[in-house]
């Protein structure tokens, strides 16, 4: 077994006041004894090499290891160091035979005290003996005692609470709050790409942290700890899978599944035992480094948010260097990164929602305005006056059609989409009215259309109105045609109108086209394509609703 107590990194980064002290143990020297009160390690035969597997339920045993303290020259020891143990139970710490700490009794909480101070006076350079008397409460025969003695620097306390407890509490609260906020946002229609992954990721992180560190926050029976420990790996795996997925999704990275290889690779790499650094910390290093590289690639390719993630992951990587033992600062940076990215996106979405609302109101006003467009309305009323005086039956027929058209347009003005059946009804009424006014034979043919398909209101009506504005259909026969094609890319509508004595101006310009594009944007965001061009003797407008 390799050296497990080399924690120079920790001392360098987290406990600068004591940075010149190294405490070195060789796990191969670790011994255990099941005697009631064993003697010296070198003479008492009850001392055996340490085995992590417990021999019986709630075993009591002694653990012993040699600790070498090394000082740098001239260093003044002023900051107390502490030992921490990762074991459920009751235990007493003896430093060179002196009791230096104990949790003394069976508590309601597993590992109520996991840290004990090493007296400064006991830290003279050289070899020392550490013994721990352990009663592994709540653990069964065959369980791994995972008896790891690590050095912790009690650098400072926060209102009497160890910083690890503070960071655990902060992490758990922040991640759960983020998850709750994202769930609420999602339910209120604020679903953004990666939101679901972020929710599961946040909950997984909260649970993994609580399962790891919850013993410092909550009191529960010793017997709960082993099953709680067993619950950790799935949440940790979710963390390592969903963090890359979230970042790749937010950047809209192509071939995301291929790039997701970073997750199993980082986990697999963390399994390789390289000694000093904890497995999960190694996994953090690997996953954050890999994601940083991916973000830089995305930044170089100009992907969404890639610059933001590159900076954020750079900070996270640095945070991991600052706190390579617990990784809490890293996790805090990661959760802030995820929350900030989504918060910025939700803010953008809110702004977009306001803009869309304004656009929607404007479109509604446009539709109403087009109802009373002078050219159409006043010419219609003039024609009506003529019919009233010369041909009352025509007047009645025209008024009836006009009333139907206005009724439908009034109904459409409050809606963001209508069925094609409703749209075609409006178009046919308009064509009939114009045919009567222009003394022409006009009709709209349809081919392969799905009348249940939803479309923006007055979409084709506007295109047909444009056709009347730009062409001279007086006293002739003309046929408009609308076809629908469904392809892998989406649904294509093609409206063809005959060109007869066209205006010199471009038919694709003006209020009508702007209205159509705004309506399409309101209807399906940017997932549409609209183009209009002269094809032979027809003006063909194509609207494609892309599959999302």
């Amino acid at each position: 077994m390799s050296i497990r107590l080399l924690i120079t990194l920790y001392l360098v980064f987290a406990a600068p006041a004591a940075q010149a002290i190294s405490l070195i143990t060789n796990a191969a020297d670790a011994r255990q004894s099941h005697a009631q009160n064993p003697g010296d390690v070198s003479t008492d035969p009850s001392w055996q090499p340490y085995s992590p597997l417990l021999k019986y339920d709630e075993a009591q045993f002694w653990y012993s290891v040699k600790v070498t303290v090394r000082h740098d020259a001239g260093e003044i020891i002023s900051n107390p160091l502490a030992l921490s143990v990762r074991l459920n139970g009751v235990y007493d710490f003896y430093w060179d035979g002196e009791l230096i700490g104990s949790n003394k009794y069976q508590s309601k909480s597993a590992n109520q005290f996991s840290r004990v101070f090493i007296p400064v006076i006991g830290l003279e350079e050289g070899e020392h003996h550490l013994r721990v008397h352990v009663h592994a409460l709540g653990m069964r025969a065959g369980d791994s005692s995972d008896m790891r003695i690590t050095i912790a620097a009690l650098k400072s306390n926060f209102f009497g609470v160890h910083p690890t407890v503070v960071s655990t509490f902060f992490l758990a609260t922040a991640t759960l709050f983020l998850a709750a906020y994202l769930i609420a946002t999602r339910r209120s229609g604020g679903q953004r790409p990666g939101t679901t992954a972020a929710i599961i990721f946040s909950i997984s992180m909260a649970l993994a942290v609580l399962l790891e560190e919850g013993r410092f926050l909550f009191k529960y029976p010793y017997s709960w700890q082993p099953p709680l420990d067993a619950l950790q790996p799935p949440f940790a795996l979710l963390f390592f899978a969903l963090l890359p997925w979230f970042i790749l999704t937010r950047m809209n990275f192509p071939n995301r599944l291929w790039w997701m290889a970073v997750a199993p690779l980082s986990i697999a790499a963390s399994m390789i035992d390289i000694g000093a650094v904890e497995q999960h910390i190694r996994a953090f290093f690997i996953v954050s480094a890999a994601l940083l590289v991916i973000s830089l690639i995305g930044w170089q390719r100009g992907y969404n948010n890639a610059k933001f993630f590159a900076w954020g992951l750079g900070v996270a990587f640095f945070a991991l260097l600052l706190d390579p033992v617990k990784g809490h600062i890293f996790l805090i940076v990661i959760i802030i990164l995820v929350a900030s990215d989504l918060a910025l996106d939700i803010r953008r979405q809110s702004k977009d929602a306001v803009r869309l609302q304004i656009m929607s109101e404007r479109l509604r006003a446009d539709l109403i305005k087009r109802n009373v467009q002078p050219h159409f309305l006043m010419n219609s009323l003039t024609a009506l006056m003529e019919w009233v005086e010369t041909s009352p039956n025509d007047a009645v027929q025209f008024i009836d059609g006009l009333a139907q058209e206005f009724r439908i347009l009034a109904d459409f003005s409050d809606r963001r989409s209508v069925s094609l059946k409703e749209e075609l009804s409006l178009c046919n009424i308009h064509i009939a009215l114009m045919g009567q006014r222009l003394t022409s034979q006009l009709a709209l043919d349809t081919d392969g259309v799905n009348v249940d398909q939803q479309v923006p209101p007055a979409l084709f009506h506007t295109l047909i109105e444009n056709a009347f504005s730009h062409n001279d259909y007086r006293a002739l026969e003309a046929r408009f045609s609308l076809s629908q094609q469904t392809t892998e890319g989406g649904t294509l509508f093609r409206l063809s109108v005959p060109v007869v004595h066209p205006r010199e101006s471009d038919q694709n310009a003006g209020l009508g086209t702007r209205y159509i594009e705004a309506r399409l944007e309101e209807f399906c965001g940017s997932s549409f394509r609209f183009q209009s061009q002269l094809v032979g003797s027809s003006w063909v407008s194509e609207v494609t609703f892309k599959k999302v």
Partner: protein
Amino acid sequence: MSFNLLIVEDEPLVAKRLSRLSADILGDKLSVQHSAPDVATARSLITEHTIDLILLDLNLVGSDGFDLLKEFTAKAAHTIIVSAETSRALEAFEFGVLDFVPKPFTRERLAKALARFWKPEFTDAPAASQIAFEASGGIDVVSASDVLYFRGADKYSEATLKNGSVKFHTKSLNRLEDILSASFVRSHKSYLVQCSAIKSLRSLEGSRYELDLDDGNSLPIGRTRIDHVRRALANNDTACGGQ
């Protein structure tokens, strides 16, 4: 006096209504009535026939309303606009149309507009402030205030501008007077003078009078028009007041 009417309208029912009501209103005064559904036909009819009055829709398929306004007010005939776009009425009057009839229109409203062809002096329409001249390259638009005076030349008029240049207008002096009387005074059967350009009125031997203009030129005043000119100048130092 009978006259020739041209209806330029692309809406069949509206054209039919204009034709029916005009014939009804004008009766014997209407000599010939032409109808054009588009600008090309209208141009052709104007070239082939003597047209006195044009009823013009500003929103013809294939045409820009502003271009139509410039082109038709530069013609010899008077123009009455019949349009749904009432927002263009002021612009139309600036170019010297006789009237602007908004659609839809009744018989009475059309009759009132047509009456202005004979009695334009009773019009309450604003005076023209822009004058469109037919030119070889298209239409030139000149501000009415830049014209010193018009001189009648047969059926046409010759405009002398403040910058010294001369332009020909296809409208007769009488028709120009119809649309410019608010700021011009008819000092002679052959002259229509910008009021603000008149420096003084000078009497000559033999009961003759002349107008001295700002640019140093002098124009004769008709014996029968001296009172009219004096009244006009007395009304306002810079404008003629319309009578």
